[in-house]
């Protein structure tokens, strides 16, 4: 079942992404530097320096949506590496091994000059370091640090009191790493880093995410939901990869206005809405139709994914020192989504805000603290069903999942 988008913003974001990628390929062909960045590292530095970049997870999602992840994982396997480990990054690594790169989605991912990723987990650094051994490619890793004690209410603290939320040790570390990154980029690309431009970029990002916050709040309080995640994910995530641009800020505003209009005119994703569902986990890129599969039969609408919600709560950072504020955006970014108590308490807060009736939780093999997420939601009264699969490796998705979710809706959520 193919997903059906109905938002003009989603369609416009998709169009822009294709045009941007074609332009990116032109710029790379003209010998401009090209960076491949992990999602959770500070893109804002590259934006400031006008260094073209693509996001590895975005590329993996595109590959999966084109049903090509198996091909790239096979290329990884042919080099002797495991095809069952960290597929989100391994799929993108596979493109480096493709003997016919131009046959990839949208003409293929250009060869990067620099890769930046966080040394999280046990494997991410290895994956990108292996890529860094390809001719002409440099891998610049950033540390992934952890903290002993953290205040629970990070979503309230982050906009202004991020020093208190993240803690000075991690902020000092990442700020220093980013200062070094700037000098590395100035040296290797010849581009200059303008402090005033940097402040503009940081301000644009905050404006963009503030619009996302208004949109999130509007969807949360509107019944029936004006749209589902099939529309909200591209409307927020494609601009997210362009954050720090006026286009991204403006489309975030148009996204809000379009949702506002739908609310005002009574349009709904599923007029006969009987259950509001929350999707916890990464997007199921190879089967986005999954999210609309339960609307007709059960009136069950996926109104929530982390993508809009984390845009609303996870990015906004104000402060006089833009580099430290940028470090505060990313020094604990994944903790917001995956580390209890931050993650579990935030999901509960969001479930309450959105009036959620049931939670579908995608549990991947990589360690993500899923027990505490489910526990917190269930303790707060939200039914949870877990799906065990990888979000880019379609081989791991069981045929029985749709039927199981249907039974759960009947017997638990709608009972």
């Amino acid at each position: 079942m193919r997903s059906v988008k109905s938002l003009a913003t989603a369609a416009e974001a998709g169009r822009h992404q294709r045009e941007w990628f074609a332009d990116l390929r032109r710029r790379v062909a003209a010998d401009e530097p090209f960076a491949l960045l992990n999602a959770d590292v500070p893109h804002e530095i590259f934006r400031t320096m006008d260094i073209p970049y693509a996001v590895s997870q975005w590329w993996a999602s595109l590959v999966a949506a084109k049903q090509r992840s198996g091909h790239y994982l096979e290329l990884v396997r042919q080099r002797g590496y495991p095809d069952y480990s960290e597929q989100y990054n391994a799929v993108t690594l596979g493109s480096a091994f493709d003997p016919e790169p131009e046959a990839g989605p949208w003409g293929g991912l250009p060869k990067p000059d620099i890769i930046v990723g966080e040394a999280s987990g046990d494997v991410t650094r290895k994956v990108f370091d292996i890529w860094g051994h390809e001719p002409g490619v440099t891998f610049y890793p950033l540390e992934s640090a952890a903290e002993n004690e953290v205040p629970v209410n990070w979503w309230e603290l982050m906009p202004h009191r991020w020093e208190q939320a993240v803690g000075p040790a991690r902020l000092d570390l990442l700020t220093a790493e980013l200062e070094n990154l700037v000098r590395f980029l100035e040296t290797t690309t010849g581009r200059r880093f303008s402090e005033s431009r940097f402040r503009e970029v940081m301000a644009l990002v905050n404006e963009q995410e503030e619009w996302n916050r208004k949109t999130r709040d509007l969807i949360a309080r509107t019944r029936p939901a004006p749209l589902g995640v099939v529309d909200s994910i591209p409307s927020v995530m494609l601009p997210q990869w362009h954050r720090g641009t006026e286009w991204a800020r403006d489309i975030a505003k148009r996204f809000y206005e379009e949702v506002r209009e739908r609310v005002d005119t009574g349009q709904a994703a599923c007029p006969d809405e009987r259950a509001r569902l929350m999707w916890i986990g990464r997007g199921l890129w190879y089967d986005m139709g999954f999210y609309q599969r339960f609307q007709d039969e059960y009136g069950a609408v996926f109104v929530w994914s982390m993508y809009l919600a984390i845009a609303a709560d996870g990015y906004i950072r104000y402060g006089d020192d833009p580099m430290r504020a940028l470090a505060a955006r990313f020094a604990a970014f994944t903790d917001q989504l995956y580390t209890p108590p931050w993650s579990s308490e935030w999901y509960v807060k969001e479930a309450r805000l959105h009036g959620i009736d049931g939670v579908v939780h995608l549990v991947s093999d990589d360690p993500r603290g899923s027990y505490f997420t489910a526990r917190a939601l269930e303790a707060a009264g939200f039914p949870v069903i877990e799906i065990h699969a990888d979000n880019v490796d379609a081989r791991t998705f069981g045929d029985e999942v749709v039927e199981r979710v249907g039974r759960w809706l009947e017997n638990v959520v709608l009972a």
Partner: protein
Amino acid sequence: MPTALAALEEAYARRGAARPPASPASSASSEGPAGARTPVVGYVGADLPVELLTAAGVRAFRLTGDPESGSALGDRYLGLGVDPMARSVLTRLLDGAFGDLDHVVVSHDCEASLRLFYALRELRRVEPGTRLPEVYLVDILHLPHRTTARYNRRRIGEFAARLEAWTGRPLDLAGAVAAHDERRRLLAAVAELRRAVPARLTGRQFLAVADPGLPVDEHIALLERLLAEAGRLEEHTGRRVFLSGSDHDTPHVYEAVESEGYVIVGEDHSFGGPQPDRPVGAGGLDALAEHYHHSGPTAHRATAGERAAHAARAVRHCRAEVFVAYSRIGDEAPAWDFPAQRAALDVPAVLLERQEYGRADLTALRKEHPCAV
């Protein structure tokens, strides 16, 4: 009097039990000199600066799992994607298998340890009935840069201050570092016995010798005796294997491999110790921070290139004839290292991947590199 090897093997068999091994002089009691109870600390991970635990005068031992007992609680709280060794440690903690611990200290040596820390922290918060001890993370990182060095120094200082708060007395760091450096020196000498041709210690025996769970002074005394008794050690003539990859907190895999006639003459996991012979030296907390910053290269924190270069050096040093990379389910980092390691070696290499905890499916090893013994 049993031989030193027998004493070490006996201590190894008892380590991590509810009543951890203690020196005969102070055994059966954790009373300090002034009658105050000596804190008991269980620690997790390879990056823990154990010198600080010794300097604080606490009784400390590394927590280990058990493949023979169930891990249902650990599976539930950590999820099946986490290294089963960590799941087993958590299960045993919840079962009280380690006795009364005052504190658990966890290092960030791998993702499983970090996840274990988060689970312990959260369980204490939301399920206080589990009665878990206080848990503390020592976040030592490993990128080879000054930014990381400064971060590590800060974290080491914080841990030292926390230990002083726990015990209420200043650390004797110089004495502790000297003792641990002496242990490193002795362990390096003992490792040469295994590297001899024929080997004078099996891999299974070396696991016991390297980490019997004893206080450092007692361990030193037994290592000195072991070296003095070296002439009486048996010779082991099996095909010489270098074992790379996942940590082995129990002897199960060593026993499986060596039961087929191989002898494991070296390894690069933290229970054998990739580099046991490099001293910390003088320099206090600065030197300690640098030492742990550059520890390894372990499968979880080093690049494939670093691991391959280390494997080539270590295999030559051990005079190994076969290289075996072992990658456990939920611990996939070693499988990413293997192609570079194989390319760097001039001996046959085999990957045992997706292995179950405490098990070794040796089909690939038997098929490609059968033991002639």
